[in-house]
C-alpha cells in the first residue's frame, strides 16, 4: 500500500452536538477500489460525503481533523470547494439524472467548466458514455430525455456524467442498491474497469458486492473505523471480532 491517494487523520464529524464520526484515520490507495461497509447508521455514507465536502450543505455540521487528498487538506480555509468537487466526483444511491436530454446530462459538467466547443463536447459525451458502458444503448437517442431510461441505465448515465468532468476520484454511495441483479452486475463490472484510471471508493450494504468489487475494505461501526485491510484478508481472517461478527451475519 505504497501509493496513497487520500490520507485521513483523526477526522471527526458532528451533527450539532451528536458525534457521527469519531477520529477516523485511514489511507486510501490510488487506482484501487476501496469498499466501505458496516451496518446502517455506522457513518460510512457520512464519511464518503465528507471526502467531497457534500456535508457542507447540511447546516450545523462541524468537522475536525484532516482529509489530505494528494497531500492537500481539503478542509483548509483557502481550498475552493468547487474545485474539490470537480476532482472528486460522486455517484448517488438514487440515480438522479437532470430532467434534460441524455446529451445535456453529460455535457452539463464540461459546460459549467467553460467548454463551449460543440465538437469537443460531442467527444466528451461519447467518451464518457463509452466509459460507463452505456454508449451502445443510447447513441441513437442522445436527444431524448434521460428520464425515459431504465433505473440501471440512469445510474450508468450518472456515472458517465461524473466521468465527464474527468475527476481523479469517484465516490459511489451504494450505487446499485436500488437496481436489479443484472444492472447491479453491470455496475460492478464497470467499477472493475474504472479503477484503471480512477481511485474509487464505494459504500455498500452488500457484503458479496464488497468482496467482488473491491481491493480494500474498511469496516465502520458506530461512527468508528474498526479496521481496514485488503479485502481478501477482511473476508477471510478479520483481525477484530466485531468485523467477523458483521461479515458472518451475526448482526447488522
Amino acid at each position, binding site marked *: 500500500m505504497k501509493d496513497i491517494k487520500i490520507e485521513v487523520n483523526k477526522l471527526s464529524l458532528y451533527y450539532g452536538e451528536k458525534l457521527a464520526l469519531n477520529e477516523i484515520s485511514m489511507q486510501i490507495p490510488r487506482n484501487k477500489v476501496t469498499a466501505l461497509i458496516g451496518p446502517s447508521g455506522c457513518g460510512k455514507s457520512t464519511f464518503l460525503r465528507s471526502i467531497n465536502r457534500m456535508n457542507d450543505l447540511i*447546516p450545523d455540521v462541524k468537522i475536525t481533523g484532516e482529509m489530505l487528498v494528494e497531500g492537500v487538506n481539503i478542509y483548509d480555509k483557502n481550498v475552493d470547494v468547487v*474545485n474539490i468537487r470537480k476532482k472528486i466526483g460522486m455517484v448517488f444511491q438514487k440515480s438522479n439524472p*437532470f430532467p434534460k436530454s441524455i446529451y445535456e446530462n453529460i455535457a452539463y459538467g464540461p459546460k*459549467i467548466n467553460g467548454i463551449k466547443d460543440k465538437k469537443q463536447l460531442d467527444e466528451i459525451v461519447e467518451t464518457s458514455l463509452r466509459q460507463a458502458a452505456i454508449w451502445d444503448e443510447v447513441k441513437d437517442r442522445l436527444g431524448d430525455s434521460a428520464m425515459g431510461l431504465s433505473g440501471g441505465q440512469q445510474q450508468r448515465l450518472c456515472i458517465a*456524467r461524473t466521468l465527464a468532468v474527468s475527476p481523479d476520484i469517484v465516490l459511489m454511495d451504494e450505487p446499485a442498491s436500488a437496481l436489479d441483479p443484472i444492472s447491479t452486475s453491470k455496475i460492478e463490472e464497470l467499477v472493475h474497469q474504472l479503477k484503471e484510471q480512477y481511485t474509487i471508493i464505494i459504500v455498500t450494504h452488500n457484503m458479496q458486492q464488497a468482496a467482488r468489487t473491491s481491493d480494500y475494505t474498511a469496516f465502520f461501526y458506530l461512527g468508528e473505523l474498526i479496521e481496514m485491510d485488503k479485502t481478501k484478508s477482511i473476508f477471510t481472517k478479520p483481525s477484530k471480532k466485531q468485523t467477523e461478527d458483521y461479515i458472518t451475519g451475526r448482526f447488522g
Partner: protein
Amino acid sequence: MNTTTTEEKSLFFAGNTKSSDLKGRLIVGSTLAAVILIIAVLFLIIGIIVYNGWDMFSWEFISSFPTDGMTKGGILPAIIGTFILVIVMSLAAVPFGTITALYLTEYAAENSKFAAAVRFSVRTLAVVPSIIFGLFGLGFFIQFIGTGIDKTFNAGQLHWGQPNILWASLTMALLTLPVIIVSVEEALKTVPRELREASLALGATKWQTIRKVVLPESVAGIMTGTILAVSRGAGEVAPILFTGAAYYLATLPKSVSDQFMNLGYHIYIMSTQSSDVEKTMPIQFATTLVLLMLTISLNIVAVIIRSRIRRKKVS
C-alpha cells in the same frame, strides 16, 4: 346476568347509533347547503352579468373608443390600459419577487432571523387593504419620488410628479408581490434535493446550480405566480385610483408617464360618476363581463399549468 348485559349493551348501541346518525346527517346537510349557497351566489353573479351584458358585448364594443360623453361606444382604451398596467407591473414584480423567493429558499440559513422577518413582512403585505397601497403609491411614488425627480432634473416642471402608468404599475406590483413570492417559493421547494446535489457534486457553484437546474425546474411555478398576480392586478381598482387611472382619454397612452384608462376603474366611474347611470347600464355590464372573462381565463390557465406540474412531479 349475561342476558341483561347483552340487552343493555344492545340498547346502548341502538340509542347511540340514532343520535350520531342524526348528528352526521345534520353536518352533511349543513355543509352541503353551504356549498350549494356558494355555487348559487357565483352562478347568480355570473348569470346577471352575462344576461345584462351580452347584448352590448360585441367586437365593436371591445375595439372602439367611448363616444357621446361615454354613454355610447366601446371600451378599447380601458382594455389596452389594463393590459399595459399588468405588463409593466409584471416587469417590475416578477423579477423582484423571484429574487426575493430565491433568497428565502436558497440563500437564507434555515434559522435566519432576517429571513423570518422578510417572510413576516411578505405575509403582512398580503393582508394590507388595497386602498392603503393606493395611498402609499400617491405619497411615495408620486409625491416623494416623482416630485423629487421633477425638482432635481426638470427644474420643478411637473412631469413625473403626477399620476401615470409607471406609478400605478409599481403600486400594483407592491400589491401583487406577495402572491409572486409565495408561488415562486413553493415552486423552488419542489425541486428535489437530489438534483441540486447532482449539480454541486459536478463542481457547479451554487449560482450555476440555481440558474441551470433549479430555475428551469421551477419555470412553471413562476409562470403560475405571474398569472395569478396579473389576474389580481387586472381586477384591482383601489391601488390605481390616485396613482394613474384616468376618467376619460381621447387617445391611447404613448409612454409610461401618461395616464391610462382601466377596466375596473371604468366600471366604477360608469356606475357612480356617469352623466346618465341608467342609460349606460348595458355598457357597465358588458365592461364587467370583459373584466370577468379576462380574470377567469387567466385563473384557468394558472390552474392548468399547476395541475400539469403536479402530474409531472407524480410520474
